[in-house]
């Protein structure tokens, strides 16, 4: 009987600690990020493993309808133009529930990508299974991954730069600094930053 009680307590401890450590936390620096197969605006499915020659990825959770995401659209495109050819393509993922935000549905994503001339894949997190694993809470929210033998290692989490309002007034380009460091096999100078954004709609 005593053993049973102890066992019950132990089960409770494990359950509780499991909830407190994993609930809503998502990835930390150094974690291996999951791959996915998500539909792109051209109707094709895209996975990180499709990019045989990539050295890493700039994964950005973003959308059409958030003003902060809109403020960063041109800068996201510029990141892809600069870094895709260097082995670090931008992979944009739209995480919102499109029943709540119809302005983020596939048709709207296609229209926005066409209007802005996006050259990066703009994927729909259909079923909203991927963003919780990464721990994304808002748009835009960046995860920089480095491809290794173990998998895609998370090297940076946070903001694109330090001025959402005015790209000409930016002092620190967190994402560029991180990718530049990875390219040179150096430590990423700032690994985590906070960014203001719109909560992901569930």
């Amino acid at each position: 009987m005593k053993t049973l009680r102890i066992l019950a307590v132990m089960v409770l401890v494990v359950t509780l600690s499991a909830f407190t450590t994993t609930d809503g936390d998502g990835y930390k620096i150094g974690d291996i990020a999951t791959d996915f197969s998500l539909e792109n605006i051209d109707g094709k499915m895209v996975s990180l493993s499709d990019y045989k020659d990539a050295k890493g990825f700039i994964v950005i959770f973003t959308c059409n309808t958030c003003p902060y995401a809109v403020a960063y659209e041109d800068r996201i495109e510029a990141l892809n133009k600069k870094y895709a050819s260097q082995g670090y393509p931008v992979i944009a993922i739209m995480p919102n529930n499109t029943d709540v935000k119809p302005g983020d549905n596939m048709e709207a994503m296609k229209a926005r990508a066409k209007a802005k001339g996006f050259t990066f894949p703009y994927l729909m997190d259909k079923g909203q299974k991927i963003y919780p694993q990464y721990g994304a809470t808002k748009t835009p929210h960046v995860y920089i991954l480095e491809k290794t033998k173990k998998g895609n290692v998370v090297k940076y989490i946070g903001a694109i730069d330090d001025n959402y309002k005015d790209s000409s007034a930016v002092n620190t380009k967190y994402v560029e600094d991180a990718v530049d460091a990875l390219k040179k096999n150096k430590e990423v100078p700032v690994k985590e930053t906070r960014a203001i954004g719109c909560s992901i709609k569930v």
Partner: protein
Amino acid sequence: MVMKYSVIIILLIFMSCKNETAKQEVADANNEKEQSVTQITNSDFDLKVYDYDGLEPLINKKDEKVHVVNFWATWCAPCVKELPYFETINKDYKDKDVEVLLVSLDFPRNYDTKLKPFIKKHDLKSEIVAFDDTDQNRWIPAINENWTGALPATIIYKGDKRQFYEKSFTKEELENELKQFLK
């Protein structure tokens, strides 16, 4: 014996909740920097615009009141949905020493075209200030260590007791949280 394990279980439950109770951080060092407050004058009303150094004292008041601070924007649908609940609290709890402060993160270019018309249209009675500070990586963790930066976000505090919420509220949830501070 059963008693002993119950105590352990209760303790564990409390421990699992501990990260929700955020520490209060007052950045005294920031006081050296001159605060920037801009007054935007409009024929009908003035909108006060603060950067973080200007906002900081407003969200760290050392009085006997319960302060409910909500970060919102007119374009943020879940924020707009819960605004009436904050308005209700402002109205119903005013005589119980509760103060509501609505901090708008609308972009400055939209103050005259969107924010002010919104305030007028909905006849908002709570105190409203606009917050304009682009150095998000500084002020987000300064406002709360656990804030990832998503809107809406809310602080309820009284003196040194402080709770931070990165979520939307229902009317009942908000009132229940407020009541924790009224005891």
